[in-house]
């Protein structure tokens, strides 16, 4: 019965009184819409009380408000253990801060004669209400851990049941007395709003955020002038400090970022095993290619003839690349007479490698500066950048038994013939250039 009153009747009563009371106060005593600052009576303790109290209670109220306004979002957020711990820690910290602030404020109100002179009974009631309310909240957080999570299935639905005019006090009926007291405290505070300094909660002075700070002082010309002077010095100091801090923070963030990147550059990449394999494979491939190159070089030093391939592999339209005795690229074609035709592929202009495709005129192209060379003579086309012909190379054709069938000497004369041996059985070799006779 008492539950039904405290958890259903009281809320509606408080809300009705609050709404009507606030309208009444706005209509009749608009100028009392204030928390009646006592800063000019006592400023130092106020600073240490008011600031933590307001900061703390704003954070706490924000948490409560979010949970009530967006229950689904809040619930899904709180199912995340990390976020739950963060919410609890921040909430408890802010609550403790608010409580500490309230203690300072209460002490000030009870200890300072000047402040007492302007203290009304309602101020003390509000102070007591707030103190117990925050104390109960902190106790709840300490004794019944993870309220941010369990409230989503108890207090939040209870709150919404009130909003939707289907009050259901059973949702919170089984909660511990401390929590219930906290709920009742909330409704009592709501009830007190229109009749106390708490109305200032309903003012939203956004312009305070960017207006210059104001200090309420006793007005005497000398003192006012002094305050203005001090204020100005403090202002400029504050501006300078703000600027310096901004530059310092930006600078240190920037250098932190740069240093981090630099450190990681020199640290080198940390590769996954798979990536490492790819890289090593690639490297090994390159090293093999280099080794092959050097093997070719050695072979050219040692032997007098080097295998190019089977005669049947050669074609008259597309050359086969090989490396000649000067370690320069060369091309092997099939000549009209069925014998091989070996020609250097190192352009006589600037040493590019000539292409292997033979065009309709029987020419191959150097792509660098567009010189066409006729393969049968090696001569470049008229007007080409290359002036001298590509030299033909000496070759030997050998049959399967290793017998020389035909060869081309340094003079260009061809001796011997295939003697009917099929091209599949003939191997073509490039021969080491015989010492120039001339």
């Amino acid at each position, binding site marked *: 019965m008492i539950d039904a009153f405290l958890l259903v009747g009281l809320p509606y009563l408080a809300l009705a009184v609050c709404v009507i009371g606030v309208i009444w106060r706005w209509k009749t005593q608009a100028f009392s819409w204030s928390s009646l600052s006592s800063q000019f009576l006592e400023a130092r303790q106020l600073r240490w009380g008011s600031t933590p109290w307001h900061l703390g209670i704003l954070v706490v109220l924000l948490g409560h408000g979010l949970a009530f306004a967006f229950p689904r979002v809040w619930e899904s957020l709180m199912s995340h253990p990390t976020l739950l711990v963060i919410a609890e820690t921040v909430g408890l910290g802010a609550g403790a801060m608010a409580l500490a602030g309230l203690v300072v404020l209460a002490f000030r109100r009870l200890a300072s004669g000047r402040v007492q002179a302007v203290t009304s009974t309602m101020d003390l009631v509000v102070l007591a209400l707030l103190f117990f309310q925050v104390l109960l909240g902190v106790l709840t957080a300490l004794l019944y851990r993870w309220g941010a999570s369990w409230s989503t299935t108890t207090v939040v639905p209870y709150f919404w049941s009130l909003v939707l005019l289907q009050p259901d006090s059973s949702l919170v009926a089984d909660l511990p007395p401390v929590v219930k007291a906290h709920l009742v405290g909330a409704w009592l505070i709501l009830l007190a709003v229109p009749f106390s300094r708490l109305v200032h909660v309903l003012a939203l002075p956004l312009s305070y955020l960017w207006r210059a700070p104001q200090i309420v002082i006793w007005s005497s010309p000398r003192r006012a002038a002094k305050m203005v002077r001090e204020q100005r010095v403090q202002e400029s100091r504050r501006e300078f400090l703000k600027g310096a801090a901004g530059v310092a923070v930006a600078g240190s963030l920037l250098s932190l970022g740069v240093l981090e990147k630099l450190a*990681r*550059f020199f640290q*080198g990449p940390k590769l996954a095993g798979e990536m490492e394999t790819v*890289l090593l494979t690639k490297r090994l491939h*390159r*090293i093999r290619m*280099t080794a092959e190159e050097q093997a070719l070089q050695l072979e050219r030093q040692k032997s007098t003839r080097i295998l190019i391939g089977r005669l049947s592999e050669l074609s008259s339209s597309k050359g086969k*690349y090989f490396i000649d005795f000067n370690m320069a690229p060369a091309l092997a074609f099939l000549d009209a007479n069925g014998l091989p035709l070996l020609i250097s592929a190192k352009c006589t202009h600037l*040493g590019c490698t000539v292409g292997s495709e033979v065009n309709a005129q029987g020419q191959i192209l150097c792509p*660098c500066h567009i010189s066409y060379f006729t393969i049968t003579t090696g001569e470049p086309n008229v007007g080409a950048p290359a002036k001298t012909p590509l030299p033909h190379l000496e070759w030997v054709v050998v049959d399967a038994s290793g017998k020389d069938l035909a060869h081309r000497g340094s003079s260009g004369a061809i001796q011997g013939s295939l003697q009917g041996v099929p091209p599949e059985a003939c191997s073509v070799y490039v021969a080491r250039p015989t010492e120039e006779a001339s």
Partner: protein
Amino acid sequence: MSLYSAIKRAKDYAAERFPIEKLNFHSMVEKKEVPVHRLSWGYYLGGAALFFLLVQIVTGLMLLFYYQPTVSDAHASVEYISDYVVGGALVRNMHSWSSSMMIACVIAHLLTAFAMKAFEKPREITWLTGVGLLFLTFGFGFTGYLLPWNQIAVNATKIGLQSIEQVGQYLPGQMAQWPRAIRETIQGEAAVGQATLSRFYAIHVIVLPFALAALLGLHLFSVQLHGMSRGVEDPPRRQEKFFPMFLIKDLSVWGVAFFLLFLMALCLPFESFSPYPLFEAFDPNGSTPDGIKPEWYFYFVYYPLELLPFGVILVGSGLAMLMLLLTPWLFRSTSRKTLRILALVGAAYFLGMTLFGEDIYHIFKGGGQ
């Protein structure tokens, strides 16, 4: 002329170029003033080139930690830098873009210094060291181009070196063989290979930087010693203090330059202007791919080389180099107006060949694609 008078003349010459009384902080920094006139922007170009040089040194040292100068590993190590090292692609892009920007600044600096007659007595040494620095910068470009050991690098280097050999046909008798010997000395073996890579690496990383440091020291020292050249015919109405006013402006230019460079390096890989296969690893057994070209800053000799007989280019570039070296004496009494026109012609030639070289080539050779 007696020996004594010869020595005295040499002493006087040196004394005028290196005035002892000015060798102090006060006259070299505190008193130095920079003329303000409509060509004043030219005074920032040398500083900008210096800034890009500093970027080159820092990024170059960073690349040095990963680069491997061997035929088998060079290309792979460059790929490793771009693909795996944290920030490696950025550092490499900065190094390549900054090299281009440095050369652009150096050339602009050369032209404006010429137009402003900054080589006038007693600044001959400044000019000569500047010309030396220009050659060193091109040397950096040429040697650095080979280091990634990709198709375009190796093939372009081959062509560049081969053109030394072309000189042989114009030399009489035994001398005809000398260019070939020179080329093989530079490349270290009969063909461009490991020896060439090692040599270019050594030149790029050790030899040129030391040479550059020496010349640049003398160059900057002379600039501070003699102050900024006047730059215009009429005495400028206004001067500004070098320290701190001009220095701060100079540093702001550096800031803008860094911003631009960083943005470019971040957004544009250096390779993005050339077709893909040119940046594959060099393949000694394949044919030379299409589109082998030197870097843009060599276009001004490359396209004429393609168009004209080699002898003409040889004589032309020889004369141009001689002219550059003798500028302080050749143009001693030329008016700044004439020099400005000459510099504009030079700039027009360089820009024309760099931007439209390929089109000009196709106009004369036909077969534009």
